[in-house]
């Protein structure tokens, strides 16, 4: 149309540099998501220009490849263990400098940026690959792609291709940054059977923030959400001597729960934090089911409980509890140990004084914003006390509010007690964050979920016992299968549900597996194995935190070896890109930023790298791989 012609006439180059293409390709195979982001930038100017490749990736992802191609030369990332990488750049590391490309950014994302000087009249192509296992939350999987090209792009494309052997039950895609009408026009989504597809390919004129603007309206999150059919209770995949078992049965009855909230009311909670905590608690109490039992424990310098034992979530009790929440005031110090032990005692009393509640799912939720300063303050003693008091009977969830918490300590404590820790960010939406966390554990469906596999068939298994299973979530177990055991592989699941025992056996349907392999081929094989590797590395890294030095070294070495074998940039590995350097001669490196890495504004400016004139000789993750000559004589398939 005339108007689009007009729009197309807008100059997409900024300072002589234009983005010829920016493509995000995401392939999901059974929850394993493999992303490749490719961007081609052209410098049409008669002098060298600095260009940036800038994108955000989920914190849960591992980068597995990065390459830059310029003037026919390819510059490829080399993965090494972090210690070796550090030694190589010791000089820079000692002086506190680094040429890192990845920085923590916001709550859930990491920012990857590289600035390069590009020769006049030449082009450069960036390609970043990262992978993650999608986690089911609130009845869906979510793929988040942060979109923020700094200028208009000639060929912009997000292509999400999903393959789920159980079949896809729903699929949606949203781009919050697009007006509704334009979103409907440009986002194409479809799903049928096992396959789902989302394509977003806006033209240049559709990217413009106004008909005459050279600015882009592409700035925000592009989200794809989907879920899989659960008509069949078993979802057991076996390929290439690895298996992945997804467990999320539907149509189970919610279990009643015994829940105790242990809340930090130390002085540091004053102001917005206590206000938001109270708001969240009031809402959470309002959502309690009549069959649930609960109590509240507050800890400051002293420890006080609302009732001192569990009471039913009757209307009158909930009303009284809400009054208590509205009325409590802050105390001085932080007796975290005392607060937790009181909460645990209340839940433990069920066995003796309230046996009729012993079939409920018990949950302990603790919220704190700081370090223990009253009572027992030695962290290892607190861990021991909590461990000995809970004795594996119920999960402990720790919520760390704000930046002053020792999140690592909370994580270890939760992990030791079958739960997990979550950060609550000090922000205007902290109330929603607290509620959001609670909603994930509000509906327990099963307790003591045990997923068993034939012992002689399994070589390496991820966590296969889960204290509780909640509505809308999913338990994933993966492992390696011994040679020749693939065909006889099976899974037994046992758990306790509301008023009944839960027990199923899942067998591998060989015909179905063959069919799946025909449909997805190598990608399925590869992804089941990488899914296993991803989960195993995550677990090894987590386990490392709660063991002593010797055991930690052992777990680190296992996690490192797997990170190298599968080419993942994890907290134990680094990827450096040879053939380019900044003005100080530092090579760019890709590291996984740690949970407590400083905020972006505290870090120095980004370095700009210059590509060497020659392509570096290829190296591989394995030091044993030899460089092959250019021309060889050989014999191969026809």
């Amino acid at each position, binding site marked *: 149309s005339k108007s689009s012609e007009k729009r197309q006439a807008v100059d997409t180059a900024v300072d002589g540099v234009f983005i010829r293409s920016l493509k995000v390709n995401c392939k999901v195979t059974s929850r394993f998501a493999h992303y490749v982001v490719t961007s081609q930038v052209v410098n049409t100017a008669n002098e060298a220009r600095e260009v940036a490749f800038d994108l955000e990736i989920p914190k849960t992802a591992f980068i597995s490849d990065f390459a830059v191609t310029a003037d026919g030369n390819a510059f490829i990332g080399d993965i090494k263990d972090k210690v070796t990488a550090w030694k190589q750049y010791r000089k820079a590391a000692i002086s506190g400098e680094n040429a890192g490309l990845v920085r923590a950014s916001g709550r859930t994302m990491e920012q990857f940026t590289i600035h390069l000087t590009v020769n006049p009249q030449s082009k450069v192509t960036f390609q970043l690959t990262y992978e993650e296992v999608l986690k089911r939350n609130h009845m869906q999987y979510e793929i988040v792609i942060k979109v923020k090209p700094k200028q208009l792009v000639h060929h912009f494309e997000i292509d999400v291709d999903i393959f789920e052997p159980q079949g896809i039950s729903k699929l949606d895609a949203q781009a919050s940054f697009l007006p509704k009408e334009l979103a409907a026009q440009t986002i194409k989504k479809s799903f049928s059977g096992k396959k789902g597809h989302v394509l977003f390919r806006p033209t240049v004129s559709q990217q413009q923030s106004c008909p005459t603007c050279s600015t882009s309206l592409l700035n925000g999150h592009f989200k794809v959400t989907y879920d899989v059919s659960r008509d069949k209770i078993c979802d057991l995949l076996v390929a290439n001597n690895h298996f992945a078992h997804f467990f999320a049965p539907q149509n189970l009855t919610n279990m009643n729960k015994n829940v105790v909230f242990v809340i930090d009311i130390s002085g540091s909670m004053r102001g917005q934090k206590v206000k938001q905590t109270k708001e969240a608690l009031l809402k959470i109490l309002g959502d309690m089911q009549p069959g649930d039992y609960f109590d509240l424990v507050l800890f400051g310098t002293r420890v006080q409980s609302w009732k001192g034992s569990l009471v039913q979530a009757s209307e009158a009790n909930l009303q009284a509890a809400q009054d208590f929440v509205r009325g409590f005031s802050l105390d001085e110090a932080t007796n975290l140990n005392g607060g937790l032990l009181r909460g645990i005692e209340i839940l433990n009393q069920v066995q003796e004084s309230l046996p009729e509640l012993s079939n409920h799912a018990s949950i302990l939720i603790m919220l704190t914003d700081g370090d223990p300063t009253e009572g027992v303050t030695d962290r290892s003693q607190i861990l021991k006390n909590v461990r000995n008091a809970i004795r594996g009977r119920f999960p402990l969830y720790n919520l760390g509010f704000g930046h002053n918490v020792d999140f690592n300590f909370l994580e270890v404590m939760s992990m030791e007690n079958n739960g997990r820790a979550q950060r609550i960010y000090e922000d205007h939406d902290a109330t929603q964050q607290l509620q959001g966390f609670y909603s994930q554990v509000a509906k327990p469906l099963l307790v003591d979920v045990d997923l068993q596999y034939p012992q002689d068939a399994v070589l390496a298994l991820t966590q296969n016992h889960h204290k509780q299973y909640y509505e809308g979530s999913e338990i994933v177990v993966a492992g390696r299968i011994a040679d020749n055991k693939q065909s006889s592989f099976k899974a037994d699941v046992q758990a306790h549900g509301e008023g009944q025992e839960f027990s199923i056996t899942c067998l591998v349907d060989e015909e179905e597996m*063959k069919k799946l392999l025909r449909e997805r081929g190598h990608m399925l094989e590869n992804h089941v194995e990488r899914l296993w590797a991803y989960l195993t590395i995550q677990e090894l890294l987590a386990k490392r935190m709660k063991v002593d030095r010797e055991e930690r070294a052992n777990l680190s070495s296992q996690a490192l070896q797997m990170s190298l074998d599968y080419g993942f940039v994890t907290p134990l590995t680094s990827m450096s890109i040879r053939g380019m350097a900044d003005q100080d001669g530092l090579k760019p490196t890709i590291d996984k930023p740690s949970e407590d890495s400083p905020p972006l504004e505290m870090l120095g400016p980004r370095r700009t790298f210059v590509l060497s004139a020659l392509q570096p000789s290829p190296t591989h993750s394995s030091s044993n791989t030899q460089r092959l000559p250019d*021309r060889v*004589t050989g*014999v191969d398939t*026809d």
Partner: protein
Amino acid sequence: PHFIIHVPQKEDTLCFNINEEPGVILSLVQDPNTGFSVNGQLIGNKARSPGQHDGTYFGRLGIANPATDFQLEVTPQNITLNPGFGGPVFSWRDQAVLRQDGVVVTINKKRNLVVSVDDGGTFEVVLHRVWKGSSVHQDFLGFYVLDSHRMSARTHGLLGQFFHPIGFEVSDIHPGSDPTKPDATMVVRNRRLTVTRGLQKDYSKDPWHGAEVSCWFIHNNGAGLIDGAYTDYIVPDIF
């Protein structure tokens, strides 16, 4: 299998196929001075399609260096060192470097293995895996000679005979039956052959995708190019 012969003096490449029955063992490299040899056994597809020409592949390779009592048997399933003496068996899932009296074998997990022989050559075996569910295809191997300049002048075999300079001339390039593949006349070993320009794939660097190589294709099992007839290269044993 297709043979790719790079001729550095001519900056060009020759290709030919050997079509034989599954089970047949072919001599690829044979150095009578040292006894070093590489033999390959053919396999076919799992299921034969009626009326179609069936592809054959290498399903087993035997590399032997008698001077150091070294034997290596490679299949798409296993890598066995000194199989005659109950040596260790490695899987393609292993990443390993094996050293034995001047021979180094490097197994690069699920990808390839490289055999380097002191005072000999360097060779690569590429693992090709097909999808597990295939009822037709099965995994197979490729074999590449990376360095042969230390092999003796007497080296023979379907590949070994080309380790040393070979001269040929190509003339009269003209359209062939396939318009994308011109025919030409090649003079080699004092014989005049009709050859066809085509593409073959070299998987030595990238076992998954391979790289296309333009070459002059010699028809009829390399007749006229190879020394003698291709049946001369059939051997009874893998070692």
